[in-house]
């Protein structure tokens, strides 16, 4: 019988975990303007989240329920089953060391475990533990962040402050054995003082998905991605 657990990822940290198929993964913002930059790998650790395929197949410029997160190889990695927010950014990537420069230098020697590390640094550190590396970085979902798109000729982008508050959640249902890699560093477009909020992760067994579950009936494309994962596990 699969069991549950939760883990608190502090702000500015990185974390990774294998999560089996058929689990609910709920992320809960622990403070205002939390950001969870999330990478996702499929069961073979080569196949990975493909944001362009995910957004074009479901005609959305952001991630929201009941979309299916799709992989390079056309499989469903997870469905977004629920969220208190209707917009999670997926067009602006994760932060680099350059985005932390405005706060001045930081190191372990100087700041001990409060030292400031970028999302990229944290994500690569986690990837390396699983035999992966910078080549495996890909477009992330920035859960809890909204980057608004202007209806202007270039589709200009602006990070919306105050989009997420403590207690906001998003829940994924894993459709195959995945590797979740996430960073709670500030969103790279943030201009706020350095005070990244933490994110709580809850993992628990998911009930079997019905054929008429919201993701399965969302769009024919979403249903086909789920069907291809079913075949891959047949």
């Amino acid at each position: 019988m699969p069991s549950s657990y939760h883990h608190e990822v502090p702000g500015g940290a990185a974390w990774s975990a294998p999560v089996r198929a058929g689990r609910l993964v709920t992320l809960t913002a622990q403070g205002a303007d939390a950001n969870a930059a999330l990478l996702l790998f499929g069961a073979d650790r080569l196949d990975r989240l493909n944001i362009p395929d995910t957004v074009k197949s479901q005609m959305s410029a952001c991630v929201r329920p009941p979309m299916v997160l799709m992989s390079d190889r056309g499989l469903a990695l997870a469905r977004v089953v629920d969220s208190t927010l209707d917009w999670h950014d997926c067009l602006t990537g994760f932060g680099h060391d350059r985005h932390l420069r405005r706060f001045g230098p930081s190191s372990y020697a100087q700041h001990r475990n409060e030292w400031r590390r970028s999302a990229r640094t944290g994500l690569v550190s986690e990837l390396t533990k699983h035999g992966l590396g910078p080549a495996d970085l890909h477009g992330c979902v920035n859960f809890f962040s909204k980057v608004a798109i202007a209806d202007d000729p270039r589709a200009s982008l602006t990070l919306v402050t105050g989009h997420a508050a403590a207690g906001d959640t998003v829940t994924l249902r894993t459709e195959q054995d995945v590797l979740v890699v996430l960073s709670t560093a500030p969103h790279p477009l943030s201009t706020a003082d350095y005070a990244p909020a933490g994110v709580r992760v809850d993992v628990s067994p998911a009930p079997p998905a019905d054929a008429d579950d919201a993701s399965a009936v969302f769009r024919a494309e979403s249903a086909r991605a789920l069907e291809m994962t079913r075949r891959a596990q047949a």
Partner: protein
Amino acid sequence: MTAALDLVVAPGDGALITVPEGGRLRIVDLHGNQAVDTLLYDAADIDNRYSAFDTVREQGAVYLTTGSRLLSTALDELAVITDDTCGRHDTVGGACSQESNVIRYGEHTRHQHACRQTFLRYGAAKGIGQRQLGHNINFFMNVPVDAAGTLRFDDGLSAPGKHVELTASRDILVLISNCPQLNNPCNGWNPTAVQLIGWWA
């Protein structure tokens, strides 16, 4: 200056071009509304590759056009769009693959030719495999996004003879798939040839 490269790429075919720092590569949409799926790599390190979402974020806008700095996954500038008679290009719609065709159009498209095969075929000579395929640019493709968060593939804004030009900021590899997609309007329902013209010493 005589051209160092003058190559017509047939629909469904591709190319891997090395462009030295300062070199200019022009892509000409010979017949109009033809998506040219393009990836860039630092010639000295293929893992320092074009990053669509770093590029989009740093320019603060979704569409690419003249002046867009095409950045790598390490935030290095690989190239700059220095000329553009089309006006706007996509970098969030990705490339087609057999697998994404199945998702978008159904199982009957599984064995249709797709950009990912072309990328893998032409990239192999430089060690570019599945792990090295990041999210690409679609020159001449029109993928409008809006404030409501919708995204769609529209008929192209391009026309016969329109071109876009890149200037390399360092020695780069340009991996091109001249998209064979038949199931959406990105190629005007009829994939056609494009021309690559390069100027460098």
